[in-house]
């Protein structure tokens, strides 16, 4: 049954890519990857400031303690977690090509794991901000 459905889907649109979940996961992988590396450029420089002493480093790290920046931090953590989970999905398909037929299910699985992971992470990051400022 599943075999016939897969055969039909493959006939209709190849083994699915454009305009489906696969494309959205590809876009998300790209956007999160680019965001992470561009942040890393800044992060290497701000961390390197420890070499310029406590006053220089503590001044720059105070930026990360700002509540608005903490929300961006949550976005960064989400980007890293999504990119990591989706990267695992890509590797599953790379090394076990048959998984390609279940790409859609794997993507929903990835998103499910991502959401499940982000619930406690969001709580842990947002709680100290709320406690401190409200």
């Amino acid at each position, binding site marked *: 049954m599943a075999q016939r459905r897969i055969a039909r889907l*493959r*006939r*209709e*649109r*190849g*083994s*699915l*890519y*454009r*305009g489906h979940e*696969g494309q959205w996961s590809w876009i998300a992988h*790209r956007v999160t*990857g*680019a965001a*992470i*590396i561009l942040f*890393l*450029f800044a992060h*290497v*420089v701000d*961390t*390197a400031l*420890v*070499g310029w*002493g*406590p*006053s220089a*480093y*503590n001044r720059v*790290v105070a930026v*990360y*303690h700002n509540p608005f920046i*903490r929300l961006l*931090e949550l976005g*960064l*953590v989400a980007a*890293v*977690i999504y990119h*990591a989970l989706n*990267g*695992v999905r*890509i*590797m599953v*398909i*790379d090394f076990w*090509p048959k998984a*390609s037929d279940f*790409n859609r299910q794997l993507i929903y699985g990835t998103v499910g794991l991502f959401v499940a992971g982000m619930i406690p*992470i969001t709580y*842990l*990051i947002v709680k*100290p901000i709320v406690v401190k400022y409200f």
Partner: protein
Amino acid sequence: MALDTGRPARPVHRDSLGTGLPYRAGRQPPRKGGEFWWWIFMRVSGILLLVLAVGHVLIMHVFGGGVDRVNFGFVAVRWQNPFWQTWDWLMLSLALLHGINGLRTITLDYVRRPGLRTTVNGAWMITGLVLFALGTIVVFTFNACRWPDISQALRIALHC
């Protein structure tokens, strides 16, 4: 790092929708040459970064109080331990290579003019080299004890 992969500047776009071609999700991996080794590297470094970068994010940003506790003293104590120095340096190296190779892939997709491609990818490469040098020097030469304005408690903690 090869700046030009021989991919055509204006790639022929084949529609995978409704053609009946046996397309599978994702791209075919490159078979040989530099691109093949980058393909392998992205996967190997990806697995390592799964531990190093995700671990880093969870340790520094999620558990144990998050970024509020991070300051000069925190880093000074942490980098006294060769384990964390090695972790951070390995993560720096792999993340820069993995990330900049990703930016190179994106550049090859969207920047079509050959001269501009070389310039943009060259800029990523130089940025990566400078940050790698900066990070490496700081991780391995950092010595908190040489700063006179650190607290007495930190001085004792670091055995200055």
